């Protein structure tokens, strides 16, 4: 997160922070472990009232920005979500709302998403050899005034809690996005197990799912640019949230090291341990800086936005994972227990690390972008 937020944004951050401390404290997260949806409908509606769902939506459609930079606003909320390992479909709802607003379509659903009374999600990921960077196996065929969908998407976040799924697939050589009601015939959800206590994912299978032509979002066969746009937003959210989780794990471990004694002195007085904290601090600050720079580059539609996003996603995934595992190590046995809160942040980070491209995927993509830039020069 930025070192300094303007006062309106700081107020917004603080409100979110306070709300999450109150409504989603660790014991509530533990309770939600056994719930089907992973979050309470009422919690989400109240969050929507605080402004969580409107940040990518145009003013004309009831949205708005606080600082003037939507992605900065959203990454502040995402950072707080990470810092509380908070429940709720923050990423999916915002991305779908942003897409509907951008295209000015399906405004009724958009209004419900804004109010938090409905949830929608985005189905982008598939299994290898496909990748979120533009290679999809799911087929969206045009048949008269209907679309016919065939294929499988996984993992899809909060699919079972959603009324609609924004599905990205291919139509001939191009990409198309359609809004599919979850209740459609031929659509089946298989709930998946996962590491996060409150994030739910499903395998979504489409077997000859037919939906009317008006369910398209954007233009048939010409969705590539929109998909890339959504992917950038998704990566900004994941990065900010992961850095929030790193910060929370780091803070709690620093406090522990100062408080815990061994051989008559605090852990924090051992140089071997101090130096590990110094490295962790550098990874943490670099993570903040990269996440913020990437968000700013996406907002500014800068040429290096994709490079920065991939640099951030791979760095935060790799070093954030190391940081949180170091936190476990420095806690000793208690760090491996369910009773301790540390794992809440390790879980959130681990989930985000694996979504929308692993660190290795992003390193390769980054290399390809750098080589392409070098060749163009």
């Amino acid at each position, binding site marked *: 997160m930025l*070192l*300094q937020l303007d006062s309106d944004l700081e107020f917004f951050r603080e409100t979110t922070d306070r709300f999450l401390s109150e409504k989603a404290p660790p014991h509530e997260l533990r309770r939600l472990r056994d719930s089907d949806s992973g979050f309470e409908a009422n919690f989400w509606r109240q969050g929507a009232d605080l402004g969580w769902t409107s940040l990518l939506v145009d003013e004309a459609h009831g949205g708005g920005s606080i600082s003037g930079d939507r992605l900065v606003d959203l990454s502040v909320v995402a950072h707080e979500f990470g810092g509380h390992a908070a429940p709720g479909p923050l990423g999916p709802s915002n991305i779908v709302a942003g897409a509907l607003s951008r295209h000015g379509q399906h405004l009724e659903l958009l209004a419900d998403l804004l109010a938090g009374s409905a949830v929608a999600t985005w189905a982008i990921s598939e299994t290898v050899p496909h990748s979120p960077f533009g290679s999809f196996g799911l087929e969206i065929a045009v048949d008269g005034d209907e679309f016919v969908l065939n294929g499988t998407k996984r993992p899809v976040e909060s699919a079972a809690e959603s009324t609609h799924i924004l599905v990205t697939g291919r139509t001939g050589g191009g990409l198309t996005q359609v809004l599919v009601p979850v209740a459609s015939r031929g659509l089946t959800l298989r709930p998946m197990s996962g590491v996060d206590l409150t994030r739910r994912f499903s395998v979504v299978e489409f077997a000859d799912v037919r939906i009317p032509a008006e369910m398209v979002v954007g233009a048939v066969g010409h969705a590539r640019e929109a998909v890339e746009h959504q992917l950038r937003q998704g990566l900004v959210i994941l990065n900010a949230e992961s850095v929030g989780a790193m910060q929370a794990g780091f803070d709690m471990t*620093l406090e522990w*090291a*100062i408080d815990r004694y061994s051989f008559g*002195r*605090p852990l*924090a*007085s051992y*140089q071997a341990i*101090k*130096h590990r*904290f*110094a*490295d962790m*601090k*550098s*990874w943490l*600050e*670099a*993570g*903040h*800086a*990269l996440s*913020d*720079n990437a968000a700013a580059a996406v907002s500014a539609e800068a040429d290096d936005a994709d*490079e*920065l996003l*991939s*640099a*951030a996603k*791979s*760095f935060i995934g*790799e070093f954030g994972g190391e940081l949180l595992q170091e936190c476990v190590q420095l806690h000793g046995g208690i760090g491996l227990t369910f009773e301790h809160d540390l794992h809440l942040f390790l879980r959130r980070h681990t989930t985000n690390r694996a979504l929308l491209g692993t660190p*290795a995927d*992003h*390193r*390769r*993509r*980054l*290399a*390809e972008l*750098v*080589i392409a830039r*070098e060749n163009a020069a």
Partner: protein
Amino acid sequence: MTAKLEDPESFRERAREFVIANLRPSSGSKLVGILRDERTDEEELAEVAREREIQRGLFEAQLAGVCVPKAYGGQGLTPAHQAVLNDELIGREYPMRLQSPTFAPCLSVLLEFGSEEQKLRHIPAILKGEEIWMQFLSEPSGGSDVAGALTTAIRDGDEWILNGSKVWTTGAWWSDWGLCLARTNWDVPKHRGLTVFMLPIDREGVEVHRIEMLNGSKEFCQEFLTDVRVPDSDRIGGVDDGWTVGTRWMFHERMGTNSPLTTQPKGGALSGPDALPMVSIAGDADVLDDRRALDLIGEAESLAAADRALRGRLGDGIAAGTISDQASAIGRLFAGRVAIRTTTIGMDLAGAAAAAWAEDDESLVEIGHDYLMRQVSCIGGGTTEMAANVVSERVLGMPRERTLDRDVAFRDVPRSPSH
């Protein structure tokens, strides 16, 4: 009354005009590598002379010392203007050797602690390329424990007489002035008996020896000071108050090329790692379509981007006062880690050419030597261990290490048997 500052765009135009008219293109990749032994002494001296000439040209074109006050020959402009100059210098020759340590930390220390007379005498000369400065800090007895300096200055009327030795100065044999930390009182605790002086390196009694590094470079130097006379007017800061200067000196050193006083085009040797050299190495090693090579190139670029982003965050935060000066140690630590990993990646991409290369191996030449010299970036400018101490103790507030050198007269502090 504050005069209106030149707007960055007109500054950019002036800079561009100067750059195009005066500076030769330079291939960024020529500047990669770690203190390589690639020039004869004559060639090295010619390059130093060329850099002085460029600096002189910058001065005449009113582009030198962008953030240095006008009273001392600078431009009195902002870091944003410096960034513009850095931008315009991309792909061009620039006075690389003059940046560190002359502009930062030496000029920074002069600006902060020099008397008016000292500033007027030296800062314009530095900006004209007439004075290249060295830091006389490290000694054979130790560099990390800077305040443990043994080099001694004894007062003799209006002069001081210096005796001792300084070491690990890079390029002292072609430099002009030394900023020197010396002990002026052995009967008080170590931090309270130090004083800072400046001295010309060609003064009588200063003997400069060159030291061969493991890759053959002879830029490392050691200075032996024997009865060197320094006038009291060349003292910086108070007598025995050298550590007040010293702590800020260390800060400016850790700021390194993050300092707005230094010029550092992206892609130049001082601008921090960048993955483009890795692309050249992979290309010359013919592994560009190997998945593992892509992974390594991506890793190098993600680390480089992290390093750049971190510098920006820390620089902005320190300038705005939202984080403490000590946070510069976070950047120093991270930069060291990134640099050594990048060097290893370069070696792995080069394959067997890292062990033995042919003349026409292009970017693979000398990669093996760079790897042997890898730790330079974790030792020079204060080690990463010292930076980790600062981060943990001063930034994170963890307990200080126990030491045996506080609250005792420096002469009673235990020392290595060999010193």
